[in-house]
């Protein structure tokens, strides 16, 4: 699932942000002490560092960097069904930019990403409510919201398929009670993408809430007390203190969220399926990649799609980092 990545990356970056001031302190001390005492200090600590970095570095090189390089090389080749690659220069990229399906996939992916961003305010609101002092059963709520994160994506897809089923789905059943006529949500070209995005939001809420809760608990009580003294109401406090103080977390969640959403595949693959009439309106970039690489066996073309996506993600992330200066407050 998209949030797996968010989950995995959340910890280190969050620590970086929060831990920066604390980290800086010991470093000069060590630098000053070491050489004075033994003279071998730097080299020794160098070895130690290697020992700690080594396993991760080897993993990164072998499973991230090397495959990335290979993919880049692959994107400039065309291969026969049983090997035998030929170098074709930028042919794959030229063909890709002329592919009528690319535009649709880009649009679908963009729409999906925009919709899933709605999950951020929802998660902030829920986290703020969960953070209310004196809330009973807080642990239960947190667990409930986190369950989708640790649930198998396949199981999530299966259950939501049943919920959305046009004939026997719970959703239409409920809508029927209030007199709204339901539809076949996952096969209607007008609703399929939104239906999937709703599941994406739902499945990702837990991770965002945990990050926001951590951010909320880092807001000093003194600020709130000062605001109380100034006579600020809860709403004023929320928008003037909570939101700005939470902005680093919001920024982090939105960066990770956008990256994850741009790579959406599993929901499309598992909830829609190949013969779905709504596919032209839901095919995402990674699904296009899957079709090219695994169904049509055009590995080089698929690699070009992957690199185009990497480029898009790179640009969007850089833009987000530039824009953060305008709205993210670091203490």
């Amino acid at each position: 699932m998209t949030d797996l990545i968010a989950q995995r990356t959340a910890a280190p970056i969050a620590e970086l942000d929060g831990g920066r001031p604390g980290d800086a302190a010991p470093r000069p001390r060590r630098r000053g002490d070491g050489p004075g005492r033994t003279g071998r200090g730097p080299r020794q600590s160098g070895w130690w560092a290697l020992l700690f970095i080594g396993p991760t570095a080897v993993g990164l090189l072998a499973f991230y960097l090397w495959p990335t390089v290979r993919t880049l090389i692959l994107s400039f080749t065309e291969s026969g069904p049983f090997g035998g690659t030929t170098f074709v220069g930028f042919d794959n990229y030229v063909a890709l930019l002329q592919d009528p399906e690319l535009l649709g996939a880009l649009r679908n992916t963009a729409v999906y990403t925009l919709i899933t961003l709605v999950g951020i305010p929802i998660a902030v609101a829920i986290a703020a409510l969960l953070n209310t002092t004196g809330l009973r059963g807080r642990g239960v709520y947190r667990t409930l919201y986190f369950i989708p994160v640790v649930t198998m994506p396949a199981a999530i897809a299966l259950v939501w398929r049943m919920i959305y089923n046009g004939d026997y789905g719970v959703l239409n059943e409920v809508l029927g009670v209030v007199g709204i006529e339901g539809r076949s949500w996952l096969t209607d070209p007008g609703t399929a993408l939104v239906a999937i995005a709703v599941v994406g939001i739902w499945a990702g809420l837990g991770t965002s809430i945990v990050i926001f809760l951590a951010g909320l608990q880092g807001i000093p009580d003194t600020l709130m007390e000062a605001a109380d003294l100034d006579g600020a109401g809860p709403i004023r406090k929320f928008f003037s203190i909570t939101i700005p103080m939470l902005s680093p977390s919001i920024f982090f969640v939105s960066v990770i969220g956008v990256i994850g959403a741009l790579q959406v595949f599993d929901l499309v693959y598992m909830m829609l399926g190949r013969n779905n009439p709504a596919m032209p309106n839901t095919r995402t970039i990674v699904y296009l990649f899957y079709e090219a690489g695994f169904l049509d066996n055009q590995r080089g073309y698929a690699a070009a799609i992957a690199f185009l996506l990497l480029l898009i993600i790179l640009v969007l992330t850089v833009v987000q980092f530039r824009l953060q200066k305008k709205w993210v407050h670091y203490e």
Partner: protein
Amino acid sequence: MLRSTRPGRTVAALAASAAALLAFSACASGSAAGDDGGDVTIDYAIWDQNQQPAMEEIAAAFTEEHPNVTIDIQLTPYKEYFTKLQTAVSGGAGPDVFWMNGPNFQLYASNGVLAPLDDEGIAASDYPQGLIDLYTYDGSLYGAPKDFDTVALWYNTELFDAAGVEYPSADWTWDDLKAAAAKLTDPAAGVYGIAATQYGQENYYDSIAQAGGEVVSADGTETGYGSPEALEGITLWTDLIEAGSSPTAQQMTDTSAEDFFLSGKAAMFQNGSWAAVAYAENPDIAEKVNVAPLAAGPEGNQSVIHGIGNVANAKSDELEIAKEFAAFASGEQAAKIQAETGTVIPAFNGTQQAWVDALPQYDLQVYIDALETAVPYPVSKNTAAWNAIESEILSQVWAGTLTPEDGLAQLADEMQAALDAESE
């Protein structure tokens, strides 16, 4: 590839392909010993777990004749079978003998992966002609037909009785089918006459042949979708949906078409011979269903025939023995072993009765009778390429967002372009 952007998957994919290579190569290395005298191991790759016991029996029978040969059976689930096989073959390591299917056959044969079996004494007359045609490429037979499946019309007797409609019979025409489907449909009860799915082998490949058309020319170079006959074959199904006699394409995407039949919400459902065992073992419907020949279109009631072929790897270290085993595993003795297990219809003529007798409660003879007029499963050199186009465009036709006329015109164009690219 996902590699650059989706690390989790990359690791999984890498691990999977590495495992696949290991699996294939580890076994290939076992067969290093020479032809004469020394012990020989032949790897035999298959994808159906249900058939593994029968395959083991066949392997044992071969070892009995050739005491120095051991057959090592390797099971890979169908979903990963061809991906793994392609990876292994590309890497120079592949099983000596393996199962092949129609859509993939020509890709392998045309790239020199398979060894011709012309010298193995396989008599074409022992097998249904459609299967021999399927596994012949450039005049040579590369695959020994192992089993086959044809298509017939399953129906729910309970729903037929309730609606007072006579059971399908051998002389049914499309009009009878449509009339019965309309009569069996009961919107109030959510019951449909038939599930008109967008399935090739089970539905529209058959109906296109019944209308006198073809999906692809026999030599695999020309699309048949541009013909009025193909249009007739497709509209048989879209008309049934439009008339309300079948669930819509949307409904059948939400709930699988077979589930409509299994839960008594569809009275008729065309399905292959593989369904017999599954239905007999399903307590919900085992007692309520039976099977009849397909309804006839303007040119007859043809069924598509498809079957697995045993093929030998041209790069096998033990090519002679591999070829011999491929022929043996499709021979009379092997066919008899398969028939007794009842899972598939053996391809070898004259051994099929045991399969029919295994489930006497159903008229399974219709599947054997279908051989008389059966047409080969439509394939070309790179079937997968136009299968993708076919499935995408027809899904729009089935959903009603494209008219059958426009859809087929577009499909004919795009499929022809794919076929032309193949022959380049």
